[in-house]
């Protein structure tokens, strides 16, 4: 098996098995469930379906994790900061005014994306 094939097909499963094994040892301080991890790792070497399932589960876990992190950020940091934003930095178009014209006198240079 070439390194490229190993990397594309199996590196994800190997990494996951190492991390799962390490975490289990940290939590339980024994090797009771490690044979299951090794068994699953061996299965992924032979079954494309097992590899797909593993990736789908980890994608779901990643999405849930991401949502938790974003939720914490949104409600604990972003939303409190929004109070300051509304008080001091609010964009003119979100305020009521007698005109919505924003006078524009120059064009942003082409060499920058802002």
């Amino acid at each position, binding site marked *: 098996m070439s390194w490229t094939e190993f990397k594309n097909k199996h590196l994800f499963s190997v990494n996951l098995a190492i991390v799962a094994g390490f975490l289990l040892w940290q939590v339980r301080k024994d090797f009771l469930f490690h044979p299951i991890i090794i068994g699953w790792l061996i299965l992924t070497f032979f079954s494309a379906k097992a590899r797909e399932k593993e990736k789908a589960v980890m994608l779901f876990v990643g999405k849930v994790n991401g949502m938790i992190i974003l939720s914490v950020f949104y*409600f604990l940091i972003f939303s409190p900061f*929004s109070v300051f934003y509304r008080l001091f930095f609010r964009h003119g178009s979100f305020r009521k005014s007698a005109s919505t*014209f924003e006078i524009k006198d120059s*064009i942003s240079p082409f*060499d920058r994306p802002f």
Partner: protein
Amino acid sequence: MKDELILGISCYYHDSAAALIRNGEILGAVQEERFSRKKHDSAFPVESIRWLLKENQISLRDLTAIVYYEKPFITFERILETHLNYAPMGFSSFLKSVPLWIKEKLFLEKDIIKKLKSIEDTQFPAITWSEHHLSHAAGAFYPSPFSDATILCVDGVGEWATTSAWTGSGKEIHPLWEIHFPHSLGLFYSAITAYLGFKVNSGEYKVMGLAPYGNPVYTDLMLKELITLLPDGSYSLNMDYFEYGHKMKMSGEKLESLLGRPMRKPETLMDQFHMDVAASLQKTLEASLLHVTTHLQKKTKKKNLCLSGGVALNCVANSKILKESGFETVWIQPAAGDAGSALGAALAYYHLHSGKERIVSADDSQKGSLLGPSFTNDDVALYLKENKIPFKKLEDTDLLDYTCKEIESGKIIGWFQGRMEYGPRALGSRSIIADARSPDLQKTMNLKIKFRESFRPFAPLVLEEDTENLFNWKHPSPYMLFVADVKDSHRKAMTSTEEKLFGIDKLNVIRSTWPAITHVDYSARLQTVSAGRQPKLYSLLSHFKKRTGHSILVNTSFNVRGEPIVMTPEDAYRCFRRTEIDILILENIVIEKKDLPEFKDSDWREVFELD
């Protein structure tokens, strides 16, 4: 002197496209949806760029510049500030948009380079960036026939700007003002479009077609509650009624209680209420645009106006602007939506960044907006022979005779000629054409050929020199961006019973000599044809006039509902077989349905998502 070849790109929101210019001249421009067969495709325009390079026999390394049509960091700033303005509300919208931006859109440069490398692995210039509304403004002004004009861009939203005004003189464009998100005429129109049960970004033109069936009884309410026209010429929206700022939907219960009914579910029955709301929305939009343009004309004191942005595809409002705003002439970029920004970005770079002079053409420099791929008779014949499809080839004069004779006998023709159109309208290169005098044609074409809503009108093709005799209109309209009323002398008087009819029942009343193109309010979405821009189509109309005395034909885009306009002979043949079009004419090659064996194909409804 080395040629300046500039590639403009627009993508990742809707209607992605690419355009190529050489020394300021448009070489080609095309929307990715035509290649991918996915309507409003937002993907990076790989195939469009590949075609532009191949067609013009150049490599990516020959390019002087590659210009993206928007400034992504400013758009991200707007999204963040909008969420800050509404937080802690808007969490679900934050969850959807922010990760996408952090993962992909902030690294747009890398992504564009990767995609270009997939086309050709070579060295090419660094990516440059044009402001969204500058791309619109440049796309409207530089190809226009004006050396001096006011420019107005009106769309949903760019970075911050939703409406912007500019002046153009020679090769220079100067900004005047912008109106910023969330105040947006485009989003206002889209919000009510969604309320009426149509899709945002594609249903707006259906609402425009629905409006004449209704009475604008809610206009005053809309102008009182939803939108305020401010004394200095600007406007503001009452955001209590709209939810697009912080939710993944356009409006909510408050708008429903204001209008007195819940939102219509897609594909359910429409009644007079929905038509009245559409009529009111259209009137409100027209009043708002007139408010902005009349102030703008007074301020700039210019005679000419250039329009762009998705709202500029509203041809009813465009006609009002031309008649009532004080501007004497109006030119509108035919690909007024984001697709046209690919061209605008390239032109903006050439004239504003490189400082190159501009040559103004008396007609315009848009080349009839026929800027896409074309196919020769040999290409067509090769495809047909490979697929064992029987056909006959006619010389030009015989083809015109044959086509006119068949149209006169009531046949519906798939007409595929020359370069494909750039923009959402079929302008006679990829069109379905028929006799406008037929009383049942509108219904037949809507239900059996286009498979779309029966209320939708069809547009007329007419010889430019005949326009004034047939319609109350004296300006050229080569890009189908204005409406005009059928002249009184060609209208048919309605009986008192017919006068009392409402809504769609009016559709069946014969209202003019050309019922298929006459809307219920006697208006028609006009396309004038000149010999200079479209010689073959001009000859066809002239020939038809010799035979019948009139130069009007029905023109609708060559596609079915939800399908992008056909691009290749293969697309055209497939569409021809899926519908009740009688005859397909590909360049000089004729295919008659009666000569063909049975066609087995998947149901088009499974292939194309309804728009």
